């Protein structure tokens, strides 16, 4: 099993850089508008929410868990934002309460999964429905759009004269934070150990339950943040905001070279993967391919991230086997 799912660690990132270059060339050749600043701003803005949720998701999958409820928490926070704003609460309070709600949703996931030792896939499929349900209960099929202009402008304008959208600054800060956390701290290292062999991690004195619980809580918090930014960017709070995003998030993480069995992968890889997906989507959208058809690209990327290394390994093993037989 371990050889079958082996992913070349550095090799995959090099491959991703090559794919990114190819995607950029493709984008340039498909449309003259591709490299304009306004388009780059669009491109970056479009993956804000996916990126914010992919960061904690990377840590969760490396620890051999999964959280499919992220997009529902995101939707719930968006709905809650609309409701609270309509109730007349001041914006800072609204934002804080939304973040608290997301954190609590994460606590719920974490407690059910970690404390009762239940399978995370099944539980978060359940909370995917549950939190989305709460989101609909809060807002029904209404949309709330009258958010203060100061904030919605923040959602759609760039930093100074650059092509960097303001919300994207949050992504950059979060990406740096999560990368350092995962790649350079004791906590991050313990996540790899947990994902690689949970028993061995426990036998090494690592507090496995606490680490996993923290991950789900952080994931809830980040999803709520994504919900707030999404609401502001589109200046619309709706119950179905972000529906289906969880699959895009998981796809981006896995395409970034993280093993679904945990223990392998890195955040730089995932960040590259996010950029590649954003570039491809943008390039194809510019050439009038509908966003729904683009899901084929996501699917193929996701599949190839596991299938290609596996087939390469299989071919290499077969050749080795043959060489051995010839030798004997």
């Amino acid at each position: 099993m371990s050889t079958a799912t082996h992913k070349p660690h550095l090799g995959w990132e090099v491959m991703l850089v090559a794919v990114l270059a190819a995607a950029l060339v493709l984008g340039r050749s498909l449309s003259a508008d591709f490299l304009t600043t306004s388009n780059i701003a669009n491109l970056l803005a479009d993956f804000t929410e996916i990126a914010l949720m992919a960061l904690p998701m990377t840590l969760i999958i490396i620890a051999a868990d999964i959280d499919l409820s992220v997009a529902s928490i995101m939707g719930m926070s968006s709905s809650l934002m609309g409701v609270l704003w309509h109730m007349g609460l001041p914006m800072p309070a609204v934002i804080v309460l939304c973040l608290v709600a997301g954190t609590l949703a994460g606590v719920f996931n974490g407690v059910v999964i970690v404390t009762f030792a239940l399978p995370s896939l099944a539980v978060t499929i359940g909370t995917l429905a549950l939190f989305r349900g709460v989101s609909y209960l809060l807002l029904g099929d209404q949309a709330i759009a009258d958010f203060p202009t100061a904030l919605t402008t923040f959602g759609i304008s760039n930093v100074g004269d650059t092509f960097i959208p303001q919300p994207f600054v949050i992504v950059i800060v979060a990406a740096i934070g999560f990368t350092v956390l995962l790649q350079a701290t004791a906590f991050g290292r313990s996540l790899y150990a947990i994902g690689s062999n949970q028993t061995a991690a426990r036998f090494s004195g690592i507090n496995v339950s606490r680490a996993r619980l923290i991950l789900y809580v952080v994931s809830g918090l980040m999803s709520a943040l994504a919900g707030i930014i999404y609401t502001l960017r589109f200046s619309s709070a709706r119950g179905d905001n972000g529906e289906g995003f969880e699959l895009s998030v998981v796809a981006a993480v896995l395409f970034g070279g993280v093993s679904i069995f945990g223990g392998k992968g890195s955040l730089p890889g995932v960040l590259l993967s996010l950029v590649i997906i954003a570039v491809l989507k943008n390039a194809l959208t510019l050439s009038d391919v509908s966003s729904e058809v683009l899901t084929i690209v996501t699917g193929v990327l996701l599949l190839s991230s596991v299938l290609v290394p596996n087939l390469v390994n299989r071919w290499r093993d077969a050749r080795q086997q043959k060489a051995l037989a010839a030798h004997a």
Partner: protein
Amino acid sequence: MSPSPLNLAPGTTPRLELRNARKNFGAVRALENGTLTLWPGEVHALLGENGAGKSTLVKILAGVHQPDGGELRVDGQPRQFARPSDAIDAGIAVIYQEPTLFPELSIAENIYMGRQPLDRFGRIRAETMQHAVQEMLASLGVNLQATQSVRGLSIADQQVVEIAKALSLNANVLIMDEPTAALSRPEVERLFAIAERLRAANVAILFITHRLEEVFRLAQRITIMRDGAAVHFAETHEMTHDSIVSRMVGRDLASYYPKAEVEPGEIALAVRRLTRRGVFKDISFTVRRGEIVALAGLVGAGRSEVARAIFGVDPVDSGDVQIKGKSLLLGDPAAAVRAGLALVPEDRRQQGLALDMSIAHNAALTVLKRLVHWGLISNQSERNLAQDWGRKLKLKAHSMDVPASTLSGGNQQKVVLGKWLATHPDVLIIDEPTRGIDVGAKAEVYQTLTELVKNGMAVLMISSELPEVLGMADRILVMNEGRLTADIPRAQADEARIMAAALGQSDPHSRSAA
């Protein structure tokens, strides 16, 4: 009682012949020369230390592994097994050391999975199957229901299900890979009676065990393996206990265990009335600095469970543990590490290592907090740490950055040992220190243990290998079914006395036996 002699009619072909079988796993050579002949009506013992290649050989005969070379004949016909079902079709049944059952399914289904009796519409004849299994269980003398699910059965009962499965195959060759390791005396007797019955029916039986007295009782012939090769073949009556052991080990025993005389110091580990309901009860003992105390007993006696409970990865119901006179917070491995306790667990691959991670990362897992500067891990000090311990333990590896999975068993054990020695423990609990590692690496592990106690460490060594226990320990504690049954000083220890205590006979001369 000695085994009945093997009388072969002239012109009999062997049931099974394996010649020069080879098997590599990546760079690791698991089997170099697997050679074995089984005659109808014989019990043939396959002996060798852990890591000698016995399991690989068994898995080749079972069709689980495909050999890289060599020849296999069954009843004189050359055969190649591509998958386990080929071996089953060829009349070979295997009882593995660990039961391989389906916990969610009934006993009857477990026994007949893949070959259930069918009616003419292809439906499973469930009642026929249940009746057959019920009869089989009755003939084995166990009180189990064919329809009950396997989940919740004791290891011994699971082993019975495995035996029934093998019997139902009407196999010509029965392979038993350490079937007695977890069995109590009556259960062993029951198994032997069955084996004798099958032998009389001209079945060829391959019997793998670590208990030599069982070999002398049951087997007509012996094949001994060492370092992946069959090194000796003999009739049982030509061999003695000592000649078998020296051929298994490949050198003189005295030089093998570098036992040093160390004056024991103060008490480093004190365990008092430790109890976990249903697992072990009232365990009390002490280990002093400079002392190696062995914890012996049968598999399943609760030894590893005691170790895990002391270290805090398993819960306890009552009792307490003191390290250097201070009470230890139980149930928290991190606290145990802080208090100066280290546990090298029995199952290196499951409990000791994150196999996909590099050697350096594995070695650093226990001391991450110490390697952190300003909140960040220093890669340099991490690599230095691994290199340091690698040198001290004579670790053979291309670099500290390769995954632990690429190392041989012996070198993996050194990484686990290194990762724990890096915490500078006062008390080292080491569970099956040499399981599955080659002879050279074993000697190095023994050497390391000896040096550690010279420097004042207290070592609690759990081991199922009596020569190792007798060779290394200053004192031997023996457990049977969750209780301590003997505490034997080195000078008075011998194999018979340890085995008696392990089988639950109270030891009259013990100092503190309960």
